[in-house]
């Protein structure tokens, strides 16, 4: 035995003991940074996406998502895996990394978890779609406002 606390446990005393054994931060040391939050990136900015590719993806993915929804409804495991895999490939290609992760989870899910996995896919897919549409239709420049012509 290295140390002890007598009952009833006093939380302050417990904290002090743990600090003593685990090592408190040295005086003057910078506080350790909080854990990095998961990046809230719908689309990887490092991925080059031409307008042609974005349009192809928007058309292709809406059909594939509909097929996935039907397959989950019908509990058709083979179609779920095939369509999730296909949509994961194209989503990875355009930089929709989080959607691709959600699709991998759906691809790997068993029948009991497919609906939950699909809900995550649908949520991520909606975000990707909105971001891609925004890329295709950038906001008009302010210079156009007040144009006397």
């Amino acid at each position: 035995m290295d140390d002890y606390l007598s009952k009833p446990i006093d939380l302050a005393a417990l904290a002090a003991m743990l600090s003593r054994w685990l090592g408190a931060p040295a005086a003057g040391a910078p506080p350790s940074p909080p854990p990095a939050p998961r990046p809230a990136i719908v689309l990887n900015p490092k991925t080059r996406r031409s307008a042609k590719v974005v349009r192809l993806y928007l058309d292709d993915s809406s059909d594939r998502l509909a097929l996935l929804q039907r397959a989950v409804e019908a509990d058709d495991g083979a179609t779920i895996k095939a369509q999730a895999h296909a949509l994961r490939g194209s989503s990875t290609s355009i930089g929709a990394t989080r959607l691709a992760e959600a699709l991998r989870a759906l691809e790997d899910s068993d029948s009991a978890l497919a609906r939950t996995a699909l809900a995550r896919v649908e949520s991520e897919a909606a975000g990707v779609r909105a971001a891609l549409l925004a890329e295709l239709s950038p906001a008009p420049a302010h210079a156009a406002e007040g144009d006397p012509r």
Partner: protein
Amino acid sequence: MTRSMRGRVLVVDDDIVALEVTRERLEAAGFGVVTRTSALGTSAFIRKEKPDFVLLDVNMPSLSGDALAKLIADGDFRPRVILHSSQGRDALAVLARKCGAIGAIEKTDDDEDFRAQLDGCIRSRH
């Protein structure tokens, strides 16, 4: 398809989005590119077009990329084959060795990563 300095690449992928992204990446890397969305008929296409490299998706409905790679290896004109898939890199590397491909590229959202994997495959057999 024009003859380019780094060679001509035939890309076969049933996913039109991945196909187009791959075409753009290869053209940016200095390759001439031709594409097919169906694996069936690729052997005849290769005899006619004589590409330097063939980039094959693995998971295709009519004929898998690794099965097609074996057909290509048995043909009269044998371009260098590279597998291209969202399977993990280790599994892909094993599959590539089994089917006679010079290497494999894991599908990626990072253009630079794609380029690095491609260069690694090409260097490995030059």
